[in-house]
């Protein structure tokens, strides 16, 4: 009798659990902070950023409850394999090397690069004609360097710096007229700097893929194909209904 009771109780608990899971699926997503404006903490400690907001919107779309798990970059893929979380959404560039380990969603953003110049530089658009004879600063060997070298190498001088900080020093000194950088890097070093007044010039650039890569994707365990598919559908919906653009504008609006 007692045994029967235990068994039925256990059964009841299991059923209850299953029902709850159908109600709102629990998902955990791994993220490495900070990388402004993709993922970072507000001064009061709350996680925010483009990835976080887009991720939450996608979770809502697939009717899941998402919890963010902060994990250092070194261990972010092993953490996924060890089931510490079910997905990684942390500005992870899609490439073939990672594809062997994880399953990627469709790219949800191509990290934009942008042109930065002093607000009194007189450069208001970026074409080979407007940059003729100017000095362009880039970080050596980055995709921005490759893009500028191939497209503007004939008309402008290109100064290549080892670090973004060296570049900013020369920008402040007036040695370079315009810089082409990863937008997050340029934002934190130039737009948010107190020493100079810098603005972005022209549109952000993330095409062609030959230079700018496949973009960032959400990583899943290989066998979670269904989950990846649901996220892809959610992304498509958000891109259609304008939510995506809203979030994009919020974090990547031009600073004029």
């Amino acid at each position, binding site marked *: 009798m007692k045994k029967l009771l235990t068994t039925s109780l256990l059964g009841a608990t299991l059923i209850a659990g299953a029902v709850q899971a159908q109600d709102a699926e629990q998902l955990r997503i791994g993220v490495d902070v900070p990388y402004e404006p993709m993922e970072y903490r507000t001064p009061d400690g709350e996680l925010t950023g483009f990835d976080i907001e887009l991720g939450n919107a996608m979770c809502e779309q697939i009717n899941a409850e998402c919890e963010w798990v902060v994990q250092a970059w070194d261990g972010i893929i092993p953490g996924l394999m060890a089931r510490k979380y079910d997905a990684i959404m942390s500005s992870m560039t899609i490439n073939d090397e990672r594809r062997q380990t994880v399953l990627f969603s469709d790219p949800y953003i191509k990290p934009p690069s942008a042109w930065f110049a002093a607000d009194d530089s007189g450069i208001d658009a970026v074409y080979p004609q407007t940059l003729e004879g100017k000095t362009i600063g880039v970080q*050596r*060997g*980055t995709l921005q*360097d*490759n893009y500028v070298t191939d497209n503007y190498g004939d008309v402008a001088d290109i*100064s*290549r*710096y*080892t670090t973004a900080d060296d570049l900013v*020093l*020369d920008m*402040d*000194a*007036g*040695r370079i007229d315009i810089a082409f950088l990863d937008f997050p890097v340029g934002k934190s070093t130039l737009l948010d700097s107190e020493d100079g007044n810098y603005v972005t010039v022209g549109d952000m650039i993330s095409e062609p893929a030959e230079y700018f890569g496949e973009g960032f994707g959400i990583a899943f365990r290989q066998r979670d194909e269904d989950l990846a598919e649901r996220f892809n559908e959610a992304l498509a919906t958000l891109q259609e209904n304008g939510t995506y653009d809203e979030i994009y504008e919020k974090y990547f609006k031009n600073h004029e």
Partner: protein
Amino acid sequence: MEQLNAWFTDLLAGNAIFTANTLGFYWDGLVTTVQLVFLCLVLGIVLAVPLAIGRGSKRPWIKWPIYLYTYVFRGTPLLIQLYLVYYGVVFFDGIQDSIFWVVFKQAFYPALIAFTLNTAAYTTEIFHGAIKNTAKGEIEAARAYGMSKPLMMRRIILPSAFRRALPAYGNEVIFMLHASAVASVVTIMDLTGAASYVYARFYAPFAAFSFVAVIYLCLTFSIMFCFRKLEKRLLAHLRPRGA
């Protein structure tokens, strides 16, 4: 030119790294390195000769400032001197509006200034040592002829001092060539700059840097060869007889 280009492309077919395009980078780098090193050496000698003479002066207000200069420039790394000249000058207020900005805006001239001051300091010490080592007999003989000090310097001391300084100076030239590799940290596309660029673009450190090492080796050997020839000619009187 087009034929040459086609020939190159044929030669390099299937090689992802050494295309005509990247070899162009290396060529520009070679030109920049040779220009930079040659100019700084010429300017360095021009500065070093009067400084070496002054360094041996008996007057303390001439001797000590020169000693301080060579001490400071030989006692600090060239990289630091380059940083100071390149990034340091921009902290002088209003330099951007002064006439000096023409010189300091580009990376080439600050590097040239730093390199010149550095090699001039070493060359001064080399020449000073050679002047000090002039045989007493030669000086006494010159005095006996009634030569004035400037004439003695011009006719007796300097010519023989230059000859004696030649081997040490040859080393300084080679050191300067090697030291010029630091120019790439201030955005100059010298040989090392070209190699770093190719490395960063193709993630091929070994190919990029070993190729540039071979170019440096060739340069070094040509410099050594010239100095050996010069030494053979100018130091003929010091060789053992009959060999």
